[in-house]
């Protein structure tokens, strides 16, 4: 059942991303282009997605997930260097191509070599991150 839930959730996510226009890089870059020809769509997508999730989080209180033992533990509140550095790096990449991980994967079937190349580079980046994290840790220790 967990797998069916994961499949349905992934499918809905993909449909939602496509319908909302978030697999269209010109809409994402248009939203980030604050001082140019600004496109407000992304704000509606983010807002729309938060409505069911806001209710869902309220629903988790005092309950257990249907097919798992517990809900994700309370969010850590520590703001560390990795969070800030990572978010900035992600933002720069997001602006450069207009793609973030969800839409990049969702567009693999129709995004041609551009989506494939972006996803491949993203996977390489993800694979390298644990060793980059280790190096940052070492550099700050010495």
């Amino acid at each position, binding site marked *: 059942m967990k797998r069916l839930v994961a499949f349905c959730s992934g499918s809905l996510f993909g449909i939602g991303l496509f319908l909302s226009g978030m697999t269209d890089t010109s809409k994402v870059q248009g939203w980030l282009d604050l001082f140019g020809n600004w496109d407000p769509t992304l704000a509606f997508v983010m807002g729309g997605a938060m409505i069911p999730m806001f209710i869902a989080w309220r629903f988790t209180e005092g309950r257990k*997930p249907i097919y798992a033992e517990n809900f994700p533990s309370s969010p850590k509140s520590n703001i560390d260097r990795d969070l800030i550095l990572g978010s900035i790096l992600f933002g720069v990449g997001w602006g450069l191509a207009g793609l973030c991980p969800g839409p990049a994967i969702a567009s693999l079937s129709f995004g041609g070599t551009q989506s494939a190349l972006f996803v491949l580079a993203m996977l390489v980046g993800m694979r390298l991150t644990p060793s980059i994290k280790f190096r940052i840790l070492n550099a700050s220790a010495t």
Partner: protein
Amino acid sequence: METDWIMGLVGGLVIGLAASLYLLGNGRIMGASGIIGGLVDKSGWTSAADRIVFLFGLILAPSIYIFFFDVEANTKATTNVMILILAGLFVGIGTRLANGCTSGHGVCGISRLSVRGIISTIFYIVAGVVSVVLLRNLWGVI
């Protein structure tokens, strides 16, 4: 177009439903970078099957939708190979360092009022705006 924000809102609600289903059903945060990253760096191999079927749905669903409703699908992404590779690397490393992306920190984090999610989202949006404004409007690179 005037209909863009309506589609954005509708698509956003579907994305929110997908995230709610994943949370209430499987007790997990629907974060694209976390689901992929856990497979790539082996940190999430104990739940590999769930992750794979999620990604399978994410790729398959938009392609079926496009086929059945015969709609136009185009990412309009840049054809500049260097920019695609650089953007993919930045997004891959950044999201794994920050431990989240637009779906994890943005949709799931903010709706939970997580401080890390809110701070991360502010930083990646500002970084995205700065990179688009500089690279597009000032230097004309993208």
